């Protein structure tokens, strides 16, 4: 048993930290503020940073070197993701962490050679194309139609809540290639150039000012070679990917907690710092404890994979717990900030640059996207405990 990093892992962690501190200059942060660091691909300077990381092999560190990875362990990949997330960068790149591993697992050799190096280098990014108006938790209800026209597919339909399509290069698309038979046996995965004629991307603004999209497909042509693996096997690929990539990073929420702790030490009310008040001490200690639990659940997934296993209910447990912990952090944070919590970034008298209220609004989606907490609890019960359906 060992709950600490090795010397090499700690050194890599330091290296990633130093790199991020150096690269996220005020100029870069200003540019990415428009998009938000999460949509860093949309910012030219931001993209350059991602490509520098790609050059170091950090985007897809677990891939074989021939595809641009470092052949590293999952622990290493998780350490890198944790650092990225803490600083507000995407901790999970769709191309490197969801599409890429699926291509690695199920794609043809040609597909691997064509796409993987460009993904690992950060040259290209994908956006997820799963959800539709009638297909959320029940993803197999998706019906964006892909008609087989011989040497290409013809696509028609609509995707909803597809994030980052406006800044990504390719759509990692789940579409329907078979309308007869069981729904989950008629889905295929395809790589679609988002600049293809017939694709219209319309913004949907969320309650946290973060942008997602409605994407409509009108007679969009997708070359046959862009089909991933076998036709009609897509749902199986997708579900397999989820077992490996369901991990939620606590990311910026851990950082806002650290900033909150400093705030309570520096803010004096009624003659003493807020951090001396018993109730605040209890709340901060509780949050710190939950964050430690998150750390153990997070790295457990990497440990399982490094030992050759597939995390299953453990992923659901990690995602749910981390989402709920993040919500606790911002809710308690808003309470501690009190009236100051209402002030938006840029306002006179604002504290913590208004990040608490922004993250508080953002925290609502955490227990919903990537598999709702209800779905995750079903998985824990059914697959983790073997309870009857």
């Amino acid at each position, binding site marked *: 048993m060992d709950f600490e*990093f090795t010397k090499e892992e700690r050194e890599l962690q330091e290296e990633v930290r130093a790199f991020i501190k150096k690269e996220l200059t005020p100029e870069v942060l200003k540019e990415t503020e428009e998009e938000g660091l999460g949509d860093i691909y949309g910012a030219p300077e931001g993209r350059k940073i991602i490509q520098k990381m790609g050059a170091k092999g950090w985007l897809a560190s677990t891939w074989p070197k021939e595809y641009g990875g470092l052949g590293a362990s999952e622990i290493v990949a998780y350490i890198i993701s944790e650092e990225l997330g803490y600083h507000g960068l995407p901790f999970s790149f769709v191309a490197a962490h969801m599409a890429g591993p699926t291509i690695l697992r199920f794609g043809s050799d040609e597909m691997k050679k064509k796409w993987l190096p460009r993904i690992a280098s950060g040259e290209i990014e994908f956006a997820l194309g799963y959800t539709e108006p009638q297909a959320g938790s029940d993803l197999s209800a998706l019906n964006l139609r892909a008609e087989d026209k011989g040497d290409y597919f013809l696509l028609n339909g609509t995707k909803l809540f597809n994030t980052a399509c406006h800044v990504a290069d390719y759509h990692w698309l789940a579409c329907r290639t078979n309308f007869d038979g069981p729904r989950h046996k008629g889905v295929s995965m395809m790589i679609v150039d988002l600049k293809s004629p017939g694709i219209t991307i319309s913004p949907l603004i969320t309650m946290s000012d973060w942008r997602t999209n409605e994407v409509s497909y009108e007679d969009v042509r997708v070359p046959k070679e862009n089909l991933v693996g076998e036709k009609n096997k897509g749902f199986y690929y997708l579900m397999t990917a989820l077992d490996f990539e369901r991990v939620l990073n606590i990311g910026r929420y851990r950082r806002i907690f650290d900033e909150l702790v400093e705030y309570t030490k520096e803010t004096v009310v009624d003659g003493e710092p807020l951090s001396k008040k018993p109730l605040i001490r209890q709340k901060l*200690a509780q949050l710190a404890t939950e964050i430690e*639990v998150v750390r153990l659940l997070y790295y457990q997934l990497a440990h399982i994979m490094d030992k050759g296993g597939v995390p299953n209910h453990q992923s659901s447990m990690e995602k749910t717990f981390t989402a709920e912990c993040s919500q606790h952090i911002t809710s308690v944070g808003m309470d501690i900030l009190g009236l100051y919590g209402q002030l938006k970034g840029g306002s006179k008298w604002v504290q913590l640059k208004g990040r608490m209220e922004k993250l508080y609004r953002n925290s609502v989606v955490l227990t919903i996207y990537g598999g709702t907490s209800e779905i*995750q609890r079903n998985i824990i019960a059914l697959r983790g405990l*073997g309870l009857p359906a």
Partner: protein
Amino acid sequence: MDYDFNEEQILLKNAAKGFLAKECKPLFVREMEKDPQGITPELWQKMAELGWMGVVFPEEYGGFGGSYLDLTVLLLEMGYSCLPGPFFSTVILGGVTIMESDNEEKKQELLASIVEGKMFVTLALTEATAGYSPERIAVKAIKDADDFVINGTKLFVPDAHWANYIICVARTKEGKNKEGITLFLVDAKSRGLEIDPLETFAGDKLHEVVFNNVRVPKENILGKLDQGWPIIEKVLQKAAIAKCAEMVGGGQRALELVIEQVTEREQFGKKVGSFQAVQHHCANIFTYLETARLMTHQAAWRISEGLPCDREAAMTKAWVSDSCHSLIALAHQAVGGTGFMEEHDLQLYFRRTKAGQVYFGDADFHREVLADVMGL
């Protein structure tokens, strides 16, 4: 990072599990709750033969030179089976205190006997003020020639009725600080010592121990005069994590009892375990259990490795206290009416979990400790 026990630890776990399944069945546990001794000499002897008392003591004192993590493996199984008796008090509160005190003479004299199962030691720490901080210690020990004379009352002392020696935590200097507290190894047959059992709700044999001019030679000081509290701090940390291991082991059995019930019982033509509300209770129970387990493993590992553990130990006792409480409450809800009956085993865990929550500092206490560690 490695989350797994090693091969020896897995063997130890399986052996302990098998042994306790045979020797410590729920009926035995219920009998021992009523029995004044709390354990049979036969069972105690068998545990000694397995070497359990010696797991965590060095070979030079007759032990097995195992780690705190090895002991944790045992404690998890003991919690699972609700093992009664003076193992926790003798080994952890008694033996570990002697180990931590660095008295070569006392270690030589006592540890080998503890390991053989022939010596019982307990710790008399808490008083009517019922707390684990130095301010709550008021029992006095006053110097008189080459002896110290102890006066006062200790409460909630586990297994004092078994003890050959009672380690008394007493004030040798006026005040409420941690400086000025001394540990005395008191012969349980001393004149002026009165031991009376308390009726408890979870089956633990706790006692009132009254010191009425009890004389203790200065050779029986563990550690140094006035410097006893730092030893107690270390012991309390280890005891708290050990109690967490028991609670997690108990939580594991509680979860199994729930699964047994909900996969068997049918209502409305379906297994109760197929209803989403019940499934979500079970998912929450499992999450509380697994997170409590991971935190306990980490703290136990850090203690084993001699790494600083103030932060993790405080977090763990707070987290496990709260989580096991919630876990048991949900378990009762999921099991339903059957689980409310005395003959169902869940009530054994219900009571023990609550007792465990409070021992060695409850969740609020440890969050305050953590706040200090965080520099708040």
